[in-house]
């Protein structure tokens, strides 16, 4: 299976402040009643973007100047909570192609990179620099350079980090493992044969 190499993502950015933004907040459970991921984008952060009587709250994502943003900025422990892939899928379907945060919850990180969404870590103060720059100029293009581990915006740049195996997978176009996993059919069967319960009875 050939995949695009994801070396960098460039686009306008939006800052969604807060720590411990959990998967229930990213996509409330009631919108998970679906048998496909299509259409999840509209429910991204639904309860934060809408009042209980369904009026817009003026969330950063809904501000006209951020329409079409492809890079999301946030705080620490982004994506904590459930393993639901609905969360990164909603982010992806809403048009986001990279997330910059202080750090990510484990399962969310794995789910996102498997979809080809780079999740990169930056320091709190560095994220604040990017946030200030886009606040001053929402049209500013932000480049998340996965290959060289930096984020460039205007005439500034900040360092980022990312788990090497995930970075390598994106840059080499191997972020979705299915092709490689399928190649090891015989080795898998041989290993499975060592466990008595793995044999079909």
């Amino acid at each position, binding site marked *: 299976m050939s995949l695009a190499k994801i070396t960098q993502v460039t686009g306008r950015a939006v800052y969604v402040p807060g*720590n411990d933004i959990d998967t229930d907040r990213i996509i409330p459970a009631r919108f998970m009643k679906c048998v496909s991921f299509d259409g999840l984008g509209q429910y991204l952060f639904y309860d934060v973007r809408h009042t209980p009587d369904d009026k817009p709250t003026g969330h950063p994502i809904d501000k006209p100047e951020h329409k079409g943003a492809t890079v999301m900025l946030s705080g620490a422990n982004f994506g904590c909570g459930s393993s639901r892939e609905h969360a990164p899928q909603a982010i992806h379907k809403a048009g986001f192609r990279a997330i910059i945060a202080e750090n990510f919850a484990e399962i969310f990180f794995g789910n996102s990179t498997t979809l080809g969404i780079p999740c990169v870590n930056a320091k709190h103060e560095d994220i604040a620099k990017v946030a200030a720059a886009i606040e001053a100029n929402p049209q500013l293009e932000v480049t998340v350079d996965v290959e060289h581990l930096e984020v460039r915006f205007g005439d500034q740049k900040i360092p980022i980090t990312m788990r090497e195996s995930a970075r390598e997978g994106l840059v080499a176009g191997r972020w979705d493992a299915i092709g490689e996993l399928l190649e090891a059919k015989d080795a898998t069967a041989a290993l499975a044969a060592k466990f008595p319960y793995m044999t079909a009875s």
Partner: protein
Amino acid sequence: MPKTLFQKVWEAHAVRKLSSGHTQLLVDTHLLHEVTSPQAFGMLRDLNLKVAMPHRTFATVDHIIPTNPGACEPFADPLAQAMMDAIRKNCQDNGIVFFDRATGKQGVIHIIAPEQGITQPGMTIACGDSHTSTHGAFGAISFGIGTTQIRDILATQTMAISPLKVRRVEVNGKLGRGVYAKDVILHIIRTLGVNGGTGYAYEFAGEVLDNMSMEERMTVCNMSIEGGARVGYVNPDETTFAYLKDRPYAPKGAAWDEAVARWKACASDPGCAYDDVVKIDAADIAPTVTWGINPAEGISINENIPDPATAATAEEKAEIEEALAYMKFTPGAPIKGTKIDVAFLGSCTNGRLTDFQEVAKHIKGKKVAPGIRALAVPGSQGVAVLCRELGIDQVFKDAGFEWRDAGCSMCLAMNPDKLVGDQVSASSSNRNFKGRQGSPTGRTILMSPLMVAAAAIAGHVADAREVFPAANN
């Protein structure tokens, strides 16, 4: 060289190293439910792939199932019915065992896999649900995964994943009166943080864990993920083996003896090296309740709700303020006495037989306070049958609880059981996130089952040791 259980199980299941640096790991047992699997079957069909090992794949329906007794299909909610139809068809088409309601074995996936003896020590287990960590109670390495990984396992019985560091979390001493497994894990998460376990598997150990029943160990491992640890486990011992003996999917005869020998050998070796060790004194653990919007925001029943004015950093202050604004609680006020609207007893954390047994012992002759909606939801049809045989369901009904059918129910409220408006719920479930129990403004206070019962009877957050003077362990 002495090794941890995690290392042994990992090494035994590593197929090979992938070019990305991840390990291709053999998954022994793949568990499915209706929320996260239909999209994976769709991906499989798109790629024209088959299920590699249907006999190692087990499915049930839990999240969307209505729990009102005797709910028939088609369900009132067409979306729920569509998900039901999809999992039923996907299992049928692919030869996967499906614990449908008619089998009498349906229930929350993390309750029925142990109950059926499918969950065994030394296994690798995966499921598209973060509370898969529950199965670690048996000394299995069990991962919550996303839907694309479900596709990977369906197609290959393997997944791409990197190993974790291991932190031993040792709880020593003796738990006080009215202190339960739920309090232990809420205390651990409060101590280590909601993010503290990222990158780690937690090995839960020490005298307290040694003395726990399997059901109590499941409660502790269940919430590993709430502390950021994807995996939590307890080394298998005689308690584990006794639980598994004669379960439907447990090995029988000579195979049983071989299995026990294998299970004993996978436990962490004496003297093995851990990446980190944390020791907790059981005497420091009190009945614990959450006051905020993540499971680490907990306090003991006799503490006061935090005051942002006393926060150490600006960030901490902002977090407390956000939580208090959502919960509509008064800074510095006692949590005890907080009025509740709903009491929920159930979920993959606390919907097991012993949870209902323990509560039933104490609520006999007592009544749920007027105006409180109290739900008791067994985690599986199996649990419901045992409760009925023991007369436990009647005890709950007599006390004024609604006794419901098996399912996830109001834990995340993907079924009709939901909070309304800004109702406050005393809940035995695992998450108090904003909107978690089905209302965007609903408020959840996590606590042990007996504390939920105490809140239901008092009508407000109460100390179970005071409401039930006989409460013990």
